[in-house]
């Protein structure tokens, strides 16, 4: 189980591949891998966005994410999990977040991955500030509920 908060841009697919190989995950136990990747859009709330700065609370961020991983492991049969989240300056199309869950069966993989992502959205202390094409800046006020359909 690994949680990483990084200022470096990352290729989520490469990270998954590297992690699987390093942890020797594909040794016959894994029947289901569920992956969520969040990438940056170039629009939000009716405005064009050119960049974003992600602030966080170092220490608490990792603690909250590790708590969420532990909670997921209590509820589902999870073989391994990888969470990576960017901080600092981010540009459209770059990956913001990766959550990957390896399990024997798809139910555990799907549900644990969804749980981890929703817990991250509501509990991990990250804050986004958008830089608009108009050169204005604004803080994103709150995350939407992931279980309600997007507007």
């Amino acid at each position, binding site marked *: 189980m690994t949680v990483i908060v990084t200022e470096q841009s990352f290729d989520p697919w490469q990270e998954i591949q590297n992690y699987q190989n390093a942890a020797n995950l594909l040794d016959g136990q894994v029947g289901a891998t569920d992956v969520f990747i969040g990438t940056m859009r170039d629009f939000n709330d009716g405005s064009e966005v050119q960049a974003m700065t992600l602030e966080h*609370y170092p220490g*608490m961020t990792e603690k909250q994410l590790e708590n969420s991983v532990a909670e997921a492991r209590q509820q589902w049969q999870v073989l391994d999990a990888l969470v990576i989240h960017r901080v600092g300056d981010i540009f459209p199309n770059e990956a913001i*977040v990766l959550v990957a869950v390896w399990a024997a069966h798809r139910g555990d993989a799907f549900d644990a991955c969804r749980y981890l992502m929703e817990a991250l959205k509501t509990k991990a202390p990250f804050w986004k500030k958008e830089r608009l094409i108009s050169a204005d800046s604004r803080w994103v*006020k709150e995350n939407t509920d992931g279980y309600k359909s997007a507007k």
Partner: protein
Amino acid sequence: MSIKIRYFASLKESLGRSEDTLLADGLASVREVWQQANPELVLPDRILVAINQDYASLNDQVNDGDEVAFFPPVTGG
């Protein structure tokens, strides 16, 4: 006792500082920590608080050496 206070994101910007150190006797709750550090300011609506990097409520007790954080709703992911 000594309490380290931290502020983040839009709250940090509006206060113009990221932290305070509060030296005081008789502090009791997170709410009182805010009031002593920011006597002219009412607590913003929907503020989140943490004690030693765990979520807490405004009525929770603080102890000497605690780190108390105030921040707006989180927007990661």
